[in-house]
């Protein structure tokens, strides 16, 4: 039913453009019924887009190759789960997913906040409509997923790298993060347009921002896990432009989540916050552009397309319009309060913001530099990992230190003596940890040693914060230690959820330093013949031989290794390659043996199968890499604590907005 899909998108186009134009007119002229009608159009567009999405999904599942998109991204032999994930495996499907999430989140945000912010909402609807107009325009006129052609006997199939369980969850989560950042942006711009620059837009978008940021962060880690297992070079993050595309808005929204607290507590950084929310949204658009335009050659940019110029134009319009609005409303955004002391929580947040934004801009420059150099000099000069590693260490280590110091500093101002007392324990723990690690030989990686010392400082500071807070609460009442702890977290969810997220970042750091600074790699130049043994660290790998197996959609070639550690047999590992028939592509299928007790992975990559039965192989020992995945779970837990609804806060807000009756 491609006609129904096309028609649903045309209906959605009409509804969304109406929401933008009629909604804008209603807000400008103050027309109530027209505003309600535009809001209904936004809600209805969700239904129309959902119909289009269902039509595409049905076509993918039914292998309806009369749709060019289905023929280009699936094949008859493709397992059902990957036929479903092909929805976001290509450009047109991704755009449709963007629009579906945008209309869904936009409708939910408008519906849930109708009573709280009735003065801002009339402008929120046309701004959301304006953003959605771009995507629905692309889907109707530029990159339709419902284009048809005579159906081939079989489809081209899905890129083998995308035939992975992590790729079923990574893109939708990433888009929830990207698109979610539209909500705080739309409300911020609506607050500026309606001249209601008080705290309301921040209050109503707080959880949306947290949720989007959480989705984005978790999606980045899922992408890293996918890269680790599927791409098969032995690492977890390669500073690939498309990986960076998700990292940049995450860094800027992290800065926003911190600086927005300063506005809530001190009514400061009001201009900075709207700049950050605009930057985060613009970077999320830029991320989609990088992923989908094929402008930068990378393992992720599977498609070359004509949408690039449209996207760049839209990003330019968004940035220009936002800057104009911010400049016009600058007098309303002037902050009545000033920083009281350079030694205070708000000052720590400010420093953290500067480092986060500097890191995001550094990554941005690394991503666009090849484009700039190609435009100016005629050939692309790629920025490599050393560039990113240098700045990640230069900006990242102070950030880690601030994660430890910030929570120990009081709001408004703190005496150096009080700060010194607070820092005593974490500093002691850090120094002891550093000395022990040095004695254990960790000095082979100076940056790693410093990183671990800082990490122990932050973890000690977090533990100290929980301990002091629990003790303070216990001194207030009859609750036991457990009750006081639960009360502490329950009554300050954002703060203590934030500390759990800090702990996740530190755990990730420990894992990243482990694999980056203390890993071992061995790639013999000579081919390994059956029966030969190679040694790496305490491991012995004996190559037993290779075998082939034909599955529904691929030929699997596997080399088998008998693995032993210190002479003790650990079993057999199989690594190799898959050759996909329909896609005419080959994928790396690595073998990973995780040792949770030792905290390390044995990682085996087969580079080439030779005709004489020998193979070229690369083996790595990746210490502490599993902490990176553990960090993802802790991150999700912390984010959930931070965004969990708080009935007391809701009551407080209801009291505040009781002065603005609905």
């Amino acid at each position: 039913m491609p006609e129904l899909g096309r028609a649903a998108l045309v209906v959605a186009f009409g509804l969304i453009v109406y929401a933008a134009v009629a909604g804008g007119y209603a807000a400008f002229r103050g027309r109530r019924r027209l505003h309600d009608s535009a809001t209904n159009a936004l809600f209805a567009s969700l239904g129309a887009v959902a119909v289009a999405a269902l039509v595409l999904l049905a076509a993918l599942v039914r292998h309806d190759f009369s749709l060019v998109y289905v023929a280009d991204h699936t094949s008859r032999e493709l397992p059902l789960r990957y036929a479903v994930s092909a929805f976001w495996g290509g450009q047109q499907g991704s755009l449709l997913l963007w629009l579906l999430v945008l209309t869904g989140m936009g409708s939910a945000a408008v519906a849930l906040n109708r009573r709280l912010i009735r003065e801002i909402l009339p402008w929120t609807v046309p701004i959301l409509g304006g953003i959605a107009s771009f995507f629905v325009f692309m889907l109707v006129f530029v990159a339709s997923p419902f284009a048809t052609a005579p159906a081939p006997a079989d489809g081209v199939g899905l890129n083998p790298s995308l035939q992975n369980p992590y790729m079923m969850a990574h893109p939708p989560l990433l888009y929830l993060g990207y698109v979610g950042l539209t909500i705080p942006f739309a409300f911020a711009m609506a607050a500026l347009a309606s001249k209601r620059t008080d705290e309301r837009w921040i209050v109503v978008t707080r959880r949306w921002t947290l949720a989007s940021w959480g989705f984005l962060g978790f999606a980045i880690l899922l992408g890293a896990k996918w890269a680790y297992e599927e791409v098969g070079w032995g690492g977890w993050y390669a500073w690939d432009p498309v990986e960076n595309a998700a990292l940049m808005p995450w860094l800027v929204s992290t800065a926003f989540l911190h600086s927005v607290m300063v506005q809530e507590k001190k009514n400061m950084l009001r201009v900075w916050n709207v700049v950050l929310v605009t930057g985060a949204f613009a970077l999320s658009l830029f991320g989609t552009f990088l992923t989908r335009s094929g402008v930068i050659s990378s393992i992720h940019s599977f498609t070359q397309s004509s949408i690039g110029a449209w996207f760049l134009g839209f990003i330019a319009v968004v940035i220009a319009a936002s800057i104009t609005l911010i400049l016009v409303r600058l007098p309303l955004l002037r902050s009545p309060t000033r920083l009281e002391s350079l030694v205070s929580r708000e000052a720590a947040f400010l420093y953290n913001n500067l480092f986060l934004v500097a890191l995001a801009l550094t990554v941005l420059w690394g991503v666009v530099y090849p484009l700039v150099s190609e435009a100016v000099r005629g050939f692309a000069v790629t920025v490599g990992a050393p560039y990113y590693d240098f700045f990640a260490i230069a900006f990242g280590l102070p950030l880690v230190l601030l994660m430890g110091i910030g929570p120990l500093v009081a709001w408004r101002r703190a005496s150096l003596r009080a700060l010194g007392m607070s820092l005593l324990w974490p500093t002691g723990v850090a120094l002891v940890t550093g000395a022990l690690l040095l004695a254990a030989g960790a000095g082979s990686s100076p940056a790693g040693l410093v990183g671990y010392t800082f990490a122990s400082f932050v973890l000690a500071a977090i533990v100290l914060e929980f301990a002091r807070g629990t003790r303070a609460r216990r001194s207030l009442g009859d609750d036991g230690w457990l009750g006081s702890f639960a009360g502490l977290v329950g009554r300050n969810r954002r703060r203590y959820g934030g500390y759990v997220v800090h702990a996740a970042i530190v755990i990730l750091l420990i894992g990243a330093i482990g694999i980056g600074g203390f890993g071992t790699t061995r790639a013999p130049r000579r081919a390994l013949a059956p029966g030969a043994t190679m040694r790496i660290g305490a491991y012995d790998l004996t190559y037993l031989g290779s075998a082939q197996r034909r599955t529904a959609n691929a030929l699997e070639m596997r080399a088998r290794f008998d693995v032993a550690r210190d002479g003790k047999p650990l079993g057999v590992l199989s690594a190799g390659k898959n050759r996909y028939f329909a896609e005419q592509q080959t994928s790396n299928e690595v073998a990973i043996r995780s040792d949770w007790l030792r905290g390390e992975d044995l990682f085996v990559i087969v580079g080439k199968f030779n005709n004489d039965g020998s193979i070229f192989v690369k083996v790595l020992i990746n210490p502490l890499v599993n902490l990176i995945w553990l960090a993802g779970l802790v991150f999700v837990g912390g984010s959930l604590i931070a965004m969990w609804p708080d009935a007391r806060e809701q009551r407080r807000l209801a009291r505040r907005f009781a002065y603005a009756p609905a």
Partner: protein
Amino acid sequence: MDLAAVVLAVLLAVACVAFVARPFLREPAPEDDRLAELSPQERERVRIAEERDRALAALKELEFDHRTGKISDADYRELVAPLRRQAAEALRALDPPRNEARPKREDVRA
């Protein structure tokens, strides 16, 4: 062309148009079609309520920071007075007839 698809598409379009037109169909000739806006007084009250909440939150933070040893006794004494004054001024300016507008114990307790 698939007839069922055409029928479904027409139904979808009609349902959407009806939903969008609903505010006009429900109120063909309303007495007042203007978007509700806060009066300057109401806006001022929201601003003061924000000030009140900010001052109460700052007091709560200050108490907590003092109790956990992040702030010295001298700094605490110096900072607490203006915050209490701010909160009191905001409460006085609001002068709510409703009991719930008064700060509850939970507002200042960490």
